[in-house]
């Protein structure tokens, strides 16, 4: 059995350590803002292709989003067709997407709808670049939050060359291009 004085000192140090741990925890909680999640700023994204390769998930939690409301519904779609496509049809040899994740549907002359199959999309951003170069830029990359595991530090954010990843409040987890005017105002 330890002498009483020693016991007391030990208890005191232990109490002090507990207060320290609690204090450190609370002082970091002071900054506790609403829950944050990762998202891509489509204005900054340069479609480098790292979203497809650097996510801790395979396939990546980053998917191509399509804002139909700003889409031109072009027949000659830069996001769907390879630049050297011989014909404007759904032939595999004409498609830009490496996983054929985009479906082209005829709506009315001369408009076509382009729909992205999220199960097939790997988030490589090849169509995004095509749509940016030739079209309205209605296709863009976003983190899909039902897939994202919200890592401590997003591995893609660390690898992103254009600083396009940022944390946004979980209540508004998407930076949709079709909402941009609303966001700015």
């Amino acid at each position, binding site marked *: 059995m330890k002498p009483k004085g020693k016991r007391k000192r030990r208890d005191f*140090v*232990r109490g002090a*350590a*507990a207060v320290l*741990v609690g204090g*450190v*925890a609370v*002082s*970091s*909680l*002071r*900054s*506790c*803002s609403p*829950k*944050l999640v990762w998202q891509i700023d489509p204005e900054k994204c*340069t479609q*480098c*292709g*790292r979203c497809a*390769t650097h996510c*801790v998930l*395979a396939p990546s939690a980053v998917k191509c*989003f399509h*804002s*139909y409301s*700003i*889409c*031109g519904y*072009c027949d000659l779609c830069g996001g769907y067709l390879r*630049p*050297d496509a011989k014909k404007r049809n759904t032939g595999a040899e004409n498609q830009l997407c*490496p996983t054929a994740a985009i479906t082209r549907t005829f*709506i*009315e002359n001369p*408009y076509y*709808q382009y*729909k992205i199959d999220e199960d097939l999309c790997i988030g*490589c951003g*090849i169509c995004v*670049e095509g749509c940016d*170069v030739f*079209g*309205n*830029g209605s296709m863009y990359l976003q983190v*899909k*939050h*039902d897939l994202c*595991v*919200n890592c*401590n*530090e997003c*591995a893609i954010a*660390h690898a992103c*060359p*254009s600083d396009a990843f940022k944390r946004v409040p*979980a209540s508004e987890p*998407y930076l*949709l291009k*079709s909402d941009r005017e609303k966001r700015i105002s």
Partner: protein
Amino acid sequence: MRGFFMTAKAQRRKVFRWSGLRVFASLRSILLLLLFVFPARAEFRFPMPEFATGYEHPAVHTPGPSNAMVGWDIVVLIATLTLAAIFVLKRRKRREIFLLTLFSLIYFGFWRNGCVCSVGSIQNIMAGICDPAYGVPLAVLVFFAAPLLFALLFGRVFCAAVCPLGAIQEAVAIRPVKVPPVVEKVLSILPYIYLGLAMLSVSMGAGFIICQYDPFVGFFRMGASFSMLIFGGLMLVLGIFVARPYCRFLCPYGVLLNWCSKLSRHHATITPADCIQCELCTDSCPYNAINEPTPDQSPETRSKGAWRLGRLILLVPLMILLGVGVGSLLKEPLSRMHPTVRLAERIAGEDLGRYAETNIESEAFRASDTPNEELYAEAVELKTGFARGGKWLGAFIGLVIGCKLIAVSILRKRTDYEPDRGTCFSCGRCFKYCPVKE
């Protein structure tokens, strides 16, 4: 996979440029027309169509983040910690502790993909202290504080059966050999260096290196970069013979647990009753965490020991100064932890013609129209920050080495075989070696 994308992308660029000319000729007239007709909507090349068939735009599918599991994580953490404390202190059965370890490996590791984990949570806490705008989620806070508070009460029961990183190493430790105590003591400085580096990295905004270099999370998620899988694989192979190499010689959270466990209220004991000095337990511990009784006769005179202690205490400030010196010398390599510094050096190197090609980072920077001077100014500011941080890091490591020297030179009186409260993982291996039963 990555190589394929790079080459595919390079080819694509070429094709765009080549066919761009052809398409450009046909599009130019349309574009010019558009610019005149819709000057306000110049950012959209094509007008949004008005459909005659009554077609409506499909909605964009925007599922919200799911955080249903977070509450469960906290509940499971507290429950496993409590169970571990009961198994270690009351029931004293290695088998039960090991089963709980396997449960934690499956739940926190393979089911929850090793995130959120206590080891990484120190970085969030540090980030929360440094940057008031950074939000620390409640779950991370609990994962940081609960194991430390349990260590203050019951020792490192978190390491014993809750931590998934410890669990995967515990599961592969089949043929543990004893590491010589000298090697063990020297290598035990590494976690302090790792902790200091991680804190420096977080406080300078250079990223969470503990998460980036987590050797086992790749196995939990069934995917990681090649080099990290090799590192993790080597750690597991090493872990067959040197039990828990990550926990003992790298884990930065272990440093905090070590401190808290030294003060623990109730710590696991090797024997349930009185020690009979049979020495059987010394073979059981693969972690060098069992302290032998001190000899009755002190090996040296009291005054000799006191002089040595005095010299070592005087050595501590010298070690701190030495650390500060080494830290300030390491300013340049340390500052390269930060991506902005790396980018600035790359851009400067490219401008000087040191590199034949550009890389993705420099291309993205040059496309952003930020002036080079702004980047350089930011890098210089970061470097001064790293110079200051490097000195603090050096001072910290100097202090740690000084204190470790003092700790090894002090002989504490012990009459029995006891677990070392700081380094004992409470794994329970020694329990069944002890012939004393209650």
